């Protein structure tokens, strides 16, 4: 039995599920439940594998297929880093599929033959990407993942935007994959193998002997993974593609798919890249790219009125945080390894946290879409009363993503920003980056206050018959919101796993968790001689609860009443619809100031030069004239055939004279 049999079992279940759902595609709900059952089984298997790896370390390597013609072997091995991302994927996959069961029923007239089977293959390929230790098969499953997600992005195929988004998504990410193909081939040229270990050695040697080529390889990997992760400007596909997919899939895209870009970046820059002074440059590149993403992405999100598009821009922003954390880690590795580890802990924790809250937010937007058919927040409002569960879980997730304590988004952002600022003591550039990251946290909060205010609060719109979503969809959201709270209150749970992941990846010794972030109920950031910052979520929660109770008590004691009245419109009578405060009215001056932050570039295909076109039309200037020449010659020859016997006789006589003349001339 191989070391990763749970995973093979899970993949098998997913593929069988894909076949069954394909066969049952006409029965939408049944297919959905079968898909959910197989994803749940696969997730269970994956989680048990992950727990085994966290407890016992890396699994032994197992060879599934060999391709001797290329010197490649499909090897499977799960180290804690893979296990960590597998756990994220398994969780989000199960929840997103559960949500889809009922959600997909609102696509009237569309079968689910191109949804569930593809979705299950998509999940299987994600798992394969995470566990293989061979770069060739890594690329194969990486692109299978892109292919399947392309199909899901273009699910609503009649809509022009979906098509556009799908094309853009596939072409940009395919370009990124081809960059990685080039990088892999350049390393293959050195090492003759695709195995991670061989590649690591090859890169190390290349850095020593031909640093330029080595940095080209690194740049190609960076382009490849950062594009998938949605780091700007390569991530321009993301705000189009993520909203276009059905909401369950949007959650999987933002929750899992972009994280694989982070996974790849961690593998390349923390594991393949040896710790040398030059790594610091790459750390700065990563950090700058991350900061640019979080700054531009979040501020652009602030301007959106389409709920799902807004979430997608926030994905870019949050990926920016992870990338910043990763950048700090890579930059700090050569001289401040402990700080580097803390930054990496923050980045990876943020990946897990983001999976929870962003998936929850996309599901919330999907739930609203399911009941109202509306994504434009200007036309929504006051849904909190009709959809309390959706409103509550979306609120929790919104506060999480904005980094409001004691929810999970706070912890990881705290780690990232703290390590960034601490490294800023060494390199003042990072001070600025850290401050930008803190400011953007505020912008995130503003953006989600807008969402809450415009969608759930305020007077209800004229829409009638809006109810809470069915239990399965509500359940999916509650699970994720619950995870946001849980991870926020007990950050040491995930951090233990992440420390093992980091220790498995980095080539330097990693201290145990207690000496990095302390132990007990909260975190104590230990850098250098002693702890420099504390965070105790439970204490904070207790304080918050006490204050809430106090406030409530004062309210009760003072017998303050509330009086509900209509909005006063200076005496004029307006329909409630007209005097609502819609999403697009939020932060107008501020939005005006940052209008051009996300430039729109029109790409126009260059015209093909007409001279070149004529030169290439080889038929017209070579073959056709030539064939005309042949025809003319032939008709000239055939002109001699007049069909009159006398003329032929004349020819014979003339010929005879010529021959006799020639003979006489030669015999002379």
């Amino acid at each position, binding site marked *: 039995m191989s070391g990763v049999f749970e995973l093979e079992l899970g993949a098998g279940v997913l593929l069988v599920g894909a076949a069954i759902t394909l066969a049952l595609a006409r029965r939408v709900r049944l297919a959905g439940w079968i898909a959910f059952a197989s994803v749940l089984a696969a997730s269970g298997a994956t989680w048990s594998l992950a727990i085994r790896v966290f407890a016992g370390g890396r699994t032994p390597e197992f060879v599934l297929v060999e391709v001797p013609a290329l010197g490649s072997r499909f090897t499977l091995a799960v180290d804690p880093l893979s296990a960590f991302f597998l756990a994220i994927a398994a969780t989000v996959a199960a929840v997103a599929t559960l949500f889809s069961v009922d959600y997909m029923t609102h696509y009237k007239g569309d079968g689910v033959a191109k949804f569930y089977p593809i979705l299950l293959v998509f999940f299987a390929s994600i798992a394969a990407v995470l566990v293989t230790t061979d770069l060739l098969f890594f690329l194969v499953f990486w692109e299978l993942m892109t292919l399947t997600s392309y199909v899901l992005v273009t699910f609503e*195929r009649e809509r022009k935007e979906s098509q556009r988004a799908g094309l853009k998504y596939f*072409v940009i990410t395919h370009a990124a994959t081809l960059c990685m193909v*080039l990088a892999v081939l350049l390393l293959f040229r050195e090492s003759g193998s695709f195995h991670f270990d061989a590649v690591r050695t090859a890169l190390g040697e290349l850095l020593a002997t031909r640093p330029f080529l080595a940095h080209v390889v690194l740049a190609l990997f960076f382009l490849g993974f950062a594009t998938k992760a949605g780091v700007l400007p390569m991530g321009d596909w993301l705000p189009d593609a993520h909203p276009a997919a059905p909401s369950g899939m949007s959650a999987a895209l933002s929750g899992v798919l972009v994280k694989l870009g982070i996974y790849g970046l961690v593998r390349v820059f923390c594991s393949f890249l040896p710790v040398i002074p030059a790594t610091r440059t790459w750390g700065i590149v990563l950090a700058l790219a991350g900061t640019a993403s979080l700054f531009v992405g979040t501020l652009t999100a602030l301007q959106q009125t389409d709920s799902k598009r807004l979430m997608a821009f926030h994905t870019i922003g949050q990926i920016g945080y992870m990338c910043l954390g990763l950048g700090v880690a890579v930059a700090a590795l050569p001289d401040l390894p402990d700080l580097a580890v803390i930054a990496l802990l923050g980045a990876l924790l943020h990946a897990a946290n983001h999976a929870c809250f962003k998936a929850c937010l996309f599901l919330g937007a999907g739930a609203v879409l399911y009941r109202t058919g509306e994504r434009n927040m200007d036309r929504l409002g006051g849904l909190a009363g009709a959809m309390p569960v959706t409103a509550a879980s979306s609120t929790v997730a919104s506060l999480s993503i904005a980094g409001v304590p004691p929810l999970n988004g706070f912890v990881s952002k705290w780690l990232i920003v703290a390590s960034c600022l601490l490294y800023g003591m060494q390199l003042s550039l990072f001070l600025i980056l850290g401050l930008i990251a803190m400011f953007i946290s505020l912008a995130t909060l503003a953006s989600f206050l807008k969402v809450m205010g415009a969608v759930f609060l305020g007077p209800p719109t004229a829409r009638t018959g809006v109810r809470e979503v069915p239990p399965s969809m509500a359940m999916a959201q509650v699970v994720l919101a619950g995870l946001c709270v849980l991870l926020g209150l007990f950050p040491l749970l995930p951090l233990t796993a992440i420390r093992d992941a980091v220790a498995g990846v980095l080539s330097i010794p990693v201290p145990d968790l207690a000496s990095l972030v302390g132990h007990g109920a909260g975190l104590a950031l230990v850098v250098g001689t002693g702890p420099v910052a504390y965070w105790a979520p439970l204490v904070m929660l207790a304080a918050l609860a006490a204050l809430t109770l106090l406030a409530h008590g004062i309210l009760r004691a003072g017998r303050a009443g509330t009086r509900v009245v209509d909005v006063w419109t200076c005496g004029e009578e307006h329909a409630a619809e007209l005097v609502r405060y819609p999403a697009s009215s939020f932060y107008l001056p501020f939005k005006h100031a940052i209008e051009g932050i996300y430039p729109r570039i029109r790409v126009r295909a260059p015209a093909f030069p007409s001279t070149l076109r004529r030169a290439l039309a080889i038929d017209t200037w070579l073959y056709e004239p030539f064939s005309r020449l042949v025809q003319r010659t032939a008709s000239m020859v055939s002109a001699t055939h007049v069909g009159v016997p006398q003329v032929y006789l004349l020819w014979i006589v003339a010929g005879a004279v010529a021959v006799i003349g020639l003979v006489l001339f030669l015999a002379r």
Partner: protein
Amino acid sequence: MLSILLLLVVLIPAGGAILAGILRGKSSTRVGAFLSAAVALLALGSVGLGYGTTFRQGLAELPWLADTVSSPVFGVLLDPLASLMLIVVTVIGFVTFLFSLRYASDENRDHPVPSTELSRYNFWLLLFLASMVGVAISPNFLQLFVFWELTTICSWALISFYRTPKSLAAGLKALVMTSFGGLFFLGGILVLFVKAGSLEFDALGRLSPKMRAVVFLFLMVAAWAKAAQVPFHTWLPDAMEAPTTVSAYLHAAAMVKAGVFLMARTVAAGLDLSLAPAAVLGAAAVVTMFIALSYYFIQDDLKRLLAYSTIAHLAYVLLGVALGAMGSLTGLRGGALHILCHGFGKATLFFCVGAVAWRTGSRSIQALGGLARPMPLTATAFFVGIATVTGVPPFACFWSKFTLLAGAMKLPGAAGPVLVVLVLVESLISFAWLLHVGQKVFLGERTPAASINSDPPPTMCAALVLLMIGCLVVPAIGLPLVGWIGR
């Protein structure tokens, strides 16, 4: 045993051609489908029997050459390279006949085929199958040449099948251009025969380096003409006047592969020769790739677009062959594998276009739109075809392209990476354009031309499904096979 099997693979379709020519109407097509199925099974059986080995047997000789050449002139050769070709030729041949059952009928809205014409169609198609198998299992240049010219004649007859002025002109053009190349082939063989006294593939090694280069260049011109490479690329797009089944089989999967097969044979037999003109072959391949690519954007006819894509992909094979001649065995293997992988991918695309045109009567990219709703299976097959042809993993051409590129990386100095970058750029642009075209035709709102209601009938769907499976599984058969090339 194996030689009898291989003889049967040639003789069954040859005899079947006569039978199909005698029979009238539908029964002629049924005979064709049945016999081609038998041929495909026999061919797969013999590939299985000879998997990974080289089987060579002489069968007959020309009496007046018996003293001059060392081994019999006629015979069979089944090695990994021949196996690859045999799979393409027979399996896609069977699929073609399966598809033809309903395609070649008066239900065809693109171009109705009256049942009186069917025996002519099947005669030529079966004769082509026989001659193409002959090309695949030829043990020497002379036999290869004989079958090669047979395929040219079949191609001429099938391009002109509809006998419209346009198709007659296209047929003649193809005949003239490929025969012109054939002359060079003959010239190459004659030089080889005179200088080395042999017609074997490996006789090239016995020539002086100068003569070797001459023969190689002669064969190269022949291959260019047959495989529609620049500057002989103009006949292939015009040949799209043929019935779509013919375009799929002859002008994408099989006949045009004869040219690149010849070069692969030549190089595989003389790997250690360091053939100097290989650089010319490689450079011409890259040029062809980009010239073909430049024509993508001005096509409105789906079939012509696919024809240009075929030209580019034949250039890929020749690039692989050139890499092999420059000493990179991996490159040659990639090129050989591409024969197999591209055959399946491009045939899928052509049959999809055939199915669409059969239903709608249109092949215009502008006029068609939103076909995925009435024809989901065809749409799936089309996208699978695009992914296969442009090399999106896990589909077939990814493996061949990747092998080829891994081989290209073996070139010394900066040449390797530069070549890889060029190929990747071509790959990306053609991927983007084909995906765009696929979306235009199959996704989006339905256009008036697309107001039809269902996928094509079961036999045509079965053909598409078989090809889609092929697109996924052929690398599993092909990769081990190419691994034995050059051992």
